[in-house]
């Protein structure tokens, strides 16, 4: 039931113009994700950790729409007259464990695969507290630690996708007024992308300005 409500919610949001693309999310098995997540937390031995990490990674939603659908929360909004009606994603209660604790630390997975999936999830994304915020935190760390490889993969995307990625990368309340110094490398190696970075950063500043 919660899933149906959530799908309707997304359909409504898509209809009203936000950049969420309607996608089929039914191929993700929630129970498997929970099971694999629990096994990783148990950390029985290195072999099983590798196995369950790979299974978890394969099963993890690889686009923002499904990621948001499973891990986030939708509410009717607050007003002085009526209580807030909340609809949690099926994995809402596991958001912190699955994203902050596991997904952001899947070092046993090949870095290139992790970067590719992180970029896929970021496309069309926007900041939100909790699940999205945990993911964005891990994304920023992944980019800072693997800047060259990350930029190389990003450069293979078209400009709109790059714009979408960088918007999500910078999005969030209280955005920094300048771009991080470690991105200065982009200015010389990918000048076109640097322009996109500056423009996306400015869009975020505009979104959150008072």
């Amino acid at each position: 039931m919660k899933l149906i409500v959530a799908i309707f919610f997304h359909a409504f949001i898509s209809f009203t113009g936000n950049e969420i693309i309607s996608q089929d999310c039914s191929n993700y098995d929630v129970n498997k994700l929970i099971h694999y997540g629990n096994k990783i937390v148990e950390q029985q031995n290195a072999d099983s950790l590798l196995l369950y990490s790979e299974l978890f990674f394969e099963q993890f939603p690889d686009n923002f729409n499904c990621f948001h659908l499973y891990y986030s929360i939708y509410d009717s909004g607050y007003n002085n007259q009526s209580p807030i009606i909340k609809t949690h994603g099926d994995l809402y209660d596991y958001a912190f464990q699955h994203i902050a604790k596991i997904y952001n630390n899947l070092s046993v997975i090949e870095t290139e695969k992790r970067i590719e999936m992180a970029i896929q999830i970021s496309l069309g994304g926007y900041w939100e507290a909790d699940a999205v915020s945990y993911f964005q935190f891990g994304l920023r760390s992944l980019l800072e630690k693997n800047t060259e490889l990350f930029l190389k993969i990003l450069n293979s995307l078209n400009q709109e996708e790059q714009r979408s990625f960088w918007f999500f990368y910078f999005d969030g309340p209280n955005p920094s007024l300048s771009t991080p110094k470690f991105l200065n490398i982009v200015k010389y190696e990918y000048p076109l992308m640097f322009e996109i970075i500056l423009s996306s950063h400015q869009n975020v500043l505009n979104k959150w300005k008072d």
Partner: protein
Amino acid sequence: MASALSFSVNYSFSSLTAISDASGNLVESLSYDPWGRRRKPGNWNDYNVTSTMFDRGFTGHEHLPQFGLINMNGRVYDPFLARFLSPDPYVQAPDYSQNFNRYSYAFNNPLKYTDPDGEWVHLVVGAVIGGFVNWAANGAEFSAKGLGHFGVGALAGALGAGIGAGFGTLAAGSGSFGFMVSQGLTASGFGAGAAAGAGAGFSSGLVTGAGNSLLNGEDFSSALSEGLRSASIGGITGGLTGGISGGIRATKFGNDFWSGNGAGGRYGAILSYERASLPSNSSYISYQCRNFCPSKLIEPDRYYLNAERFVETENSTISNFCFPDGTDGYFLEPSGPSSRIEGSGLRISSGVYEVGSHNSTKFPNSLILKGVPGRSAILMHPGNYPCHTSGCLLPGLGYGTDQVNNSRDALNLLLELHRNSTKMILNIN
């Protein structure tokens, strides 16, 4: 403030009760109930006092009418609840059960005591009674020597009170009024009562014995000898009376006379007493969170949020508070020190703030703190990491290093509480 010269009349525990002009004509009358709540002087049932000439009032302290609170310097006090918003950092009299309720005002006995700064009433009371008793026991002379006896007694009384046995222990130390210790009611049993009484009696006996001997012209070794003798008497007397009263008190609460243990339980008995002593015309619920959260009081239409900062890193500050169901809530703020400078990016000053609803494009469903010194637009809005705030409070249901989680759930709970209360107040320390 009146334009002409005004005179205040202090009466009853230094409370401001009347204001006159230079000719002695009454300009304003003031009245308070025993717990300090302002009421109309002509009708003690009417608490609708909207404004007064001065903000000083009950026991000379500063009233905060917009919050219904009194600033007692060390702590902030709510005369409606008859409780402080934060606990007393000291338990001055461990053999006195009232002192274990660290939120209560002046041993829960406002007709007898005041709390000058929210923390050390026991020292003043101990000193005054100790001084008087010692002065009276040594001839009650109105002379320099008599003043000296009063000083020695005051020192011993404050010392005895300060180390934990309250004003009655001085009398035990002097050997003259030892039975007064029995007024230090406790549910802790004979053992704990005897230990507390003996310790306090010994120390105050030592001071009075030695001090009085020196005043009477004896040399130092004789004074020391007399001090030890008085200390022994004080220790034995205080121990016996404290032990007996502790045992009787323990029995009264259904516990063992000697150990204080039993079905009632030490803290169970105290909590029962605390609930029974609350004003009878309102319903209150007391909650105690699991971890760092201070005990707090809530009533249906006014919600008090007591948040205590307990983790500080170079990136953030995390505080803990209670939700009504007893679960813990947390706020993540920027790092310290606290700042009143707009745009500093540091956390706000500790204080008591009214919470209102807030709606903006950036944060459509959030809450705002009113009257934060030097800062504007301090919100409670969703967020998880220090980069999400430059002064606002990010609520959460869990916390880690430089983070809170389940922030939207926490904010939704706070919004619900705000929606169901006529006034919501945050006290953050």
